[in-house]
């Protein structure tokens, strides 16, 4: 199968993720959409790696997974602490500093 198709798929997933971040209101769902964007990046990297026949892209994909895992740890800690003090994880409710 032509690896270019994977690039189209990855671009589509990235777009879905990005629009999800902008549209969805629950911090956890927003965060999941960001993870989807990171995974779309991984797919792009691996597809390009296959096309170029070198391993750089796959190595980067491993690093991305580790970064994504670290981001989950930090992000969930922050979101959960917000949820516990407000009983809401909506990003619209977090508006103390709006002018």
């Amino acid at each position, binding site marked *: 199968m032509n690896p270019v198709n994977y690039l189209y798929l*990855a671009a589509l997933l990235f777009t879905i993720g990005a629009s999800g971040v902008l549209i969805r209101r629950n911090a956890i769902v927003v965060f999941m959409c*960001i993870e989807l964007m990171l995974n779309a990046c991984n797919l792009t990297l691996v597809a390009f790696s296959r096309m*170029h*026949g070198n391993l750089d892209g796959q190595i980067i994909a491993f690093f991305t997974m580790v970064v994504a895992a670290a981001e989950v740890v930090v992000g969930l800690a922050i979101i959960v*602490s917000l949820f516990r003090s*407000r009983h809401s994880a909506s990003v619209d409710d*977090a508006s103390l500093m709006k002018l």
Partner: protein
Amino acid sequence: MSATAVHSLWTRAGEVTTAAPGDKFTAPTIEYAQLAPVLIVVGVAVLGILVEAFVPRRARYTTQVFLTVVALAAAFAAVVGLAAGGYAGEKAQIAAMGAVAVDGPTLFLQGTILLVSMVSVFTFAERRLDPAAHGNRVDSFAAQAGAVPGSDSEKAAVKAGFTTTEVFPLVLFSVAGMLVFPAANDLLTLFIALEVFSLPLYLLCAVARRKRLMSQEAAVKYFLLGAFSSAFLLFGIALLYGYAGTVSYAGIANVVDGTVQEIDPALASTMGNDALLLIGAAMILMGLLFKVGAVPFHMWTPDVYQGAPTPVTGFMAAATKVAAFGALLRLLYVVLPGLTWDLRPVMWGVAIVTMLGGAIVAITQTDIKRLLAYSSIAHAGFILAGVIAASPEGVSSVLFYLGVYSFVTVGAFAVVTLVRDAGGEATHLSKWAGLGRRSPLTAAVFAVFLLSFAGIPLTSGFSGKFAVFKAAADGGAGGLVVVGVISSAIAAFFYLRVIVLMFFSEPKADGPTVAVPSPLTMTTIAVGVAVTLVLGLAPQYFLDLASQAGVFVR
């Protein structure tokens, strides 16, 4: 490339093996001496984690402060040693198998970041400002970050005298990322360094002692938007990798310039595809411009600066900007000089809206931290004008401006921590009315910082702005200089308004008090004032230093 050829990259099928399995693998060479500043900071950060685990609670604060300051000082000594050893000039080289460049800009920015972090850490360690809780001196950080605000567990934690001493290792991890960020010489290192310095910052934003809801809200906003922007950066990296078949800066630059040595068929099919290059470069720039807080990627700045604990805000405003502009410079000057003309209109647009947007919106602000946040956006615009100059003078003027601006910023936020009322820091501007009559010294120091931000002659802000605008004008960006001067004038209006408010209006009866800080915060503020005056009156030595440091290794 055929399937078997690709397959042979990670399997041993079809390979005629005569050599021993280990022969094809050459061990990487790491230049530990050149990486010493980063290694020292990371090492002590790990040590700090162990301190959290094993040292009794009573002794942790002292141990952590001591370790952090020693680590930053040792790393700075290592940077000075490398610079004295010629790595800023003729011995500049690429270390760690092409991952990190050790050259003039790297060492200059690493030195700046380390010094700025050191004075910020002094404000982190300040324990004289808040009234003692149950007989324990407290700093700006929550007794226990995990406890729900206002709950019994929080009260118990305060009563027991807990403090979040984890902030010190977190700062060190963040500083380590910042040290690598401007030195990164391939896109993977760039991304990892970005995450390494961002993740601790997200956490630091969330651990304020006072106004905890605002602090947590700032952390969520910073985290979500920061992760969003780094996803864009990563997709840009993926596209540039697709375009060039490599992530090393020099390799990509070769493909962009068309001077690549050997072209395999797969590369030939993608390197003609300018869409990959342009979209990839734009996305990476987006990620970096988010970190420097340029309009239209600035939305997080005011909220995060306002909600984060003020020492963290000062650290973030100063050190992050230095690191991110360093990475931006290297990207534009080393990887994408071939795209200078394609990117010029975009960068012009971003610089203009950043300068004007920051300055105009700042006028309407009523909170001192938000005001400083918008002022930092305007300053990002001024620095961008120097970045666009695309000349050696552009690089050195940006380096100089970053050095100047970061110390003044840390000093200004340190002053903000001093003005307090019953609810903690009194950040609303109306509370600052008449501060000059109540405590003339504090108000005078703050006025010096504001004048430096405004770029009044004889302050460091003037020498910085002059250098940047001169480089931009010489680099053919005269229009930007005109816009820059206009927005400087607009910005001067609101800086002077704060000064007028402090000195020429009557103090209110229920106004805030100015806390007397320990020598720690005093040092931070004194360093800020000293840098402002010395670099304002006699900038030449430091301008020379910056111009010697302004050559990238490739």
